[in-house]
């Protein structure tokens, strides 16, 4: 059992190390500039010059606190858009890439079912998800103490913990794209595009008549800003994300089972 999870997880280690190092460096930079920004920049004056709609939809009102600044600089964009799109992209290249290189033939010649293979490839994506969460949590937590702007450990832990369902949902979007798209490049583009696109959609519809449209955006169910600034944990949102991920994976495995591998 889980031979493929173990194998693929190990395959993902070098890429995961690079990803974790880059995100840790970015987190370190955000920490480093935080004291200067919240101490010396007059945020209220800057925000007064921006359109109120933009300030509201991006939650910029919290930029003046350490939690708010870190949440907005790191989590709202890098985590939600960057990491989300990365996981969707990476998931998209799994099956589609293996079909393209013919690797899938060699694996499926073994007595392993397609559903199980897809599920194991999906679960292997927990490796980068877990590693970057642990690494960046550590950097931010220790860094915040170092700059004397400590962040509540529970809030920070919840930011990372609740990002797991979110990232799993993004990866599930990628898995579905991976089995449906005719080629790897198409799968990757569609999957990463879906994350960026729904993020933009959700940002645009905030406060508008069609705000309900944003319900398809996974980022609606995970909000690091309110976790860090208000200690508000959206557990229902996390449940919705997990359910959506499960539904996407079921759809992907049905599509994978039915298709010809050509």
């Amino acid at each position: 059992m889980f031979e493929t999870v173990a194998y693929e997880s190990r395959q993902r280690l070098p890429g995961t190390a690079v990803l974790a190092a880059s995100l840790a460096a970015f987190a370190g930079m955000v920490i480093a500039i935080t004291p200067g920004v919240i101490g010396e920049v007059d945020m209220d004056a800057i925000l007064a010059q921006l359109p109120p709609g933009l300030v509201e939809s991006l939650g910029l009102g919290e930029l003046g606190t350490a939690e708010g600044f870190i949440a907005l600089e790191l989590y709202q964009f890098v985590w939600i858009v960057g990491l989300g799109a990365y996981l969707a992209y990476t998931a998209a290249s799994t099956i589609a890439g293996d079909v393209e290189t013919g690797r899938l033939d060699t694996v499926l010649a073994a007595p392993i079912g397609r559903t199980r293979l897809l599920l194991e490839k999906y679960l292997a994506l927990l490796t980068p998800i877990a590693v970057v969460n642990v690494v960046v949590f550590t950097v931010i937590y220790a860094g915040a103490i170092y700059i004397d702007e400590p962040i509540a450990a529970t809030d920070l832990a919840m930011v990372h913990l609740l990002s797991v369902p979110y990232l799993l949902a993004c990866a599930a979007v990628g898995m579905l794209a991976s089995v449906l798209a005719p080629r790897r490049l198409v799968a990757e583009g569609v999957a990463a595009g879906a994350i960026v696109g729904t993020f933009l959609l959700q940002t645009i519809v905030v406060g508008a008549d069609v705000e309900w449209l944003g319900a398809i955006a996974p980022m609606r169910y995970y909000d690091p800003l309110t976790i860090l600034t208000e200690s508000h944990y959206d557990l229902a949102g996390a449940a919705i994300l997990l359910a959506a991920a499960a539904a996407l994976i079921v759809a992907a495995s049905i599509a994978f089972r039915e298709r010809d591998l050509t």
Partner: protein
Amino acid sequence: MPAIEFDELTKYYGDVRGIEDLTLDVESGEVFGFLGPNGAGKTTTIRTLMGFQRPTAGTATVLGTDIRDRAALRETRANVGYLPDDVGLDEGVTGRRLLDYHGQLRGDVRSEELLELFDPPLDRKVGEYSSGNKQMLALIIAFMHDPDLLIMDEPTSGLDPLKQERLLEFIRAEQRRGKTFFFSSHILSEVRKICDRVGIIRDGHLVELETVESLLDRSGKVVRARVQGGVDAADIDLDGAHDVTVTDGDADAATVSFTYTGAYDPLLATLRDFDLLDLSIEEAPLEDVFMRFYGEDPSAKVQAINDRAERPDV
């Protein structure tokens, strides 16, 4: 029970025909060669057998399992070894790591002894492998769980002559252990050496199903005689003689050659009428037989292109 039983197996890709109405049995314990030109449908047949794609119509059984039954076929694959046409392997890992993984998926009972026959550099990354090394690694993966049936798409491709010979010898030995082989090939000498029967496929249809011997018998002998004092093609008045040609003729002697399908006595009776300087009777090359089934004359095609190249203004 036949190891593989095709029952009007048909696969279309949209409107494009892959294979159509393929019906034949591969008997348990035989080495079956599946031949045909590029694009004839060999790989389509093999990939449909493995369950990578669904048949459009008809079906086949592999070791008694209907290929349309995905779950049952998955179980059956534990007893099938497969070598793909274009070997796709993870490039970022060492051969050893890949072998471990595939051993976990299908069981590994004999990779160590196989490594004595085929020796890819296991500690190097697969991405650095030559095509021959990749082929050897894929062969080990195909045989490592000691399956009863081997389905192989161009098994010797990429191997050096020594390794090719080793593989053919290994296939013969495995056949003696009761294993069944179904493989596609272009290489006539290897077909000749190890196949019991061949099926020839062209444009998705099975056009010939024969034992190798009868194929050769039917293709006849090539007779070449050097005779004293000249000869005319019309002098060879013999049933079963085809394509009689006379070459190297001069006042003293000429060479007559033809393909002959028939018994030896009438042939020798005819030849005794001549003053023979030299005589050879050889088996017709298998190539000629295949060209006939493939329906193509390579020299004519090349000649046509050359003619065009020499007259670019036309």
